[in-house]
């Protein structure tokens, strides 16, 4: 169970300041798979980071009465000069998992081959993300957090990784911010709509989708409308020039 106590989160500065959450009270069950929906995709990602503890709320408290994973694909906290093997062992030790088991498993699934004993900094960014994703799911957690923009959750890059993900989905809870409704429908059995600074939980996923569609995107301010008009005008002008 993850409990949000009067959580407020303000992002941006100056004129772009806005509330992602406004004094939210909620209880998120740790045994369900929750899809986070909302009119502003960026906010759902901030929500995931808040639950993970990577960013801290402006006010209020988040109580985690469950073992919550780091967001799959999270890149912070790895040591670039150490080998991938040592990094994986470190994370397993950090989260109190069976070190040998996790290292063997990740070595097998991640397909890194010789790179597994080479420095972590040598990996490409997408490989780093895949590694972090596999690592997150190979450590037993009560709740897994997933951000769709970091790892394309629907397209795991090999069969074993996909099987691991599905096995974890059967036994553990998940909280997923995904822009792909098909993926959310496949894996989630509960919905959470984050709109206008408030959070609403739905036991029925379809009703969550329906509610998310109702919530209009936030009203634009005068400056934003003006900026949008300007961009439109520029685009039209460029098109006209190209046609000439």
């Amino acid at each position, binding site marked *: 169970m993850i409990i949000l106590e009067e959580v407020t989160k303000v992002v941006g500065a100056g004129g772009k300041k806005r509330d992602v959450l406004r004094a939210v009270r909620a209880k998120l069950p740790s045994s369900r798979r929750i899809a986070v929906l909302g009119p502003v995709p960026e906010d759902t990602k901030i929500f995931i980071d808040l639950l993970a503890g*990577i960013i801290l709320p402006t006010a209020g408290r988040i109580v985690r009465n469950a073992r919550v994973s780091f967001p799959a694909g999270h890149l912070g906290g790895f040591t670039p000069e150490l080998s991938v093997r040592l990094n994986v062992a470190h994370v397993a030790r950090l989260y109190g998992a069976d070190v040998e088991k996790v290292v063997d498993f990740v070595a097998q699934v991640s397909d890194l081959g010789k790179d597994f004993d080479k420095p972590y900094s040598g990996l490409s960014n997408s490989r780093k993300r895949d590694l972090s994703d596999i690592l997150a799911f190979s450590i037993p957690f009560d709740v897994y957090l997933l951000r769709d923009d970091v790892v394309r959750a629907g397209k795991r890059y090999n069969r074993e990784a996909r099987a691991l993900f599905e096995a974890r989905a059967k036994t553990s809870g998940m909280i997923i911010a995904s822009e792909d409704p098909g993926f959310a429908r496949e894996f989630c059995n509960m919905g959470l709509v984050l709109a206008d600074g408030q959070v609403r939980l739905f036991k029925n996923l379809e009703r969550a989708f329906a509610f998310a569609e109702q919530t209009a995107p936030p009203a634009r301010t005068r400056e934003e409308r003006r900026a949008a008009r300007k961009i439109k005008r520029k685009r039209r002008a460029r098109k006209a020039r190209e046609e000439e």
Partner: protein
Amino acid sequence: MAPAQALRRYFGILGALLRREEESRRQSPFDSIVNLLEPVFLILLLSFLFYALQRRQVSPLGGPPILYYATGFFPIYFFIYVSRRMRGSIDTPGRRFPIEQRLDHVIVHVILRIIDYSFLGILLFGGIYLFSSDQAIPQDITKVVASLVAIVGLGFGWGVLNLVLSRRSRIWNFIFPTISRILVLFSGVFFVPDFLTPDTRYVLGFNPLMHAVQLFRLGFYPQYTAILLDVRYLAYFAICAVLLGLMIERVTRRFEGR
């Protein structure tokens, strides 16, 4: 979670971080060796100058000059190394796993420095004992340890302040090491505070590090009077530094986010 279980888990996290530091140090051992050799180099240089310039074979407190400088520089550099470079992988929450907190990194840093300096101390004073003087084995080990414990407290508080302020503005990165090094001058490393005029002594008496150095020296020179030493002042100052450091860390945690 039961308290015992939670505590075990917390020590597991600290252990994992310690081990990681150890592993990355093995990757580049040269850096840490150079860091540790700075006080040793200074001690040797000054002792040499002492011989060359003064041609006296006895330090202000009796015994060989090398021991006199070692007992002064060792505690001061212990303070400097505990307090400096607490930053690192702890810059922003996005650059670590959510399970590790900023304070955990600070604690691991302090533990590592303590281990480093225990080894350095044994090697340094052992070396002086072998090559120069029998006095290098402390007469009163409790005073030496008490002084070092106080220095850990002071260094922790100073280091956390350093950590927090240097995130606010880069200038602090230049100011803090300067202040730390200036402290070396006013902590009675080169002179014996007892031999100064009462006015000067009164001003110097506010510097807690001077008390720590005096206490440290008292462990080696039992005949030393150390009239300026106030152990209670040092103890209170160290406890306040620890509490203040913890408080600053806690209060600024919210502003740490990106």
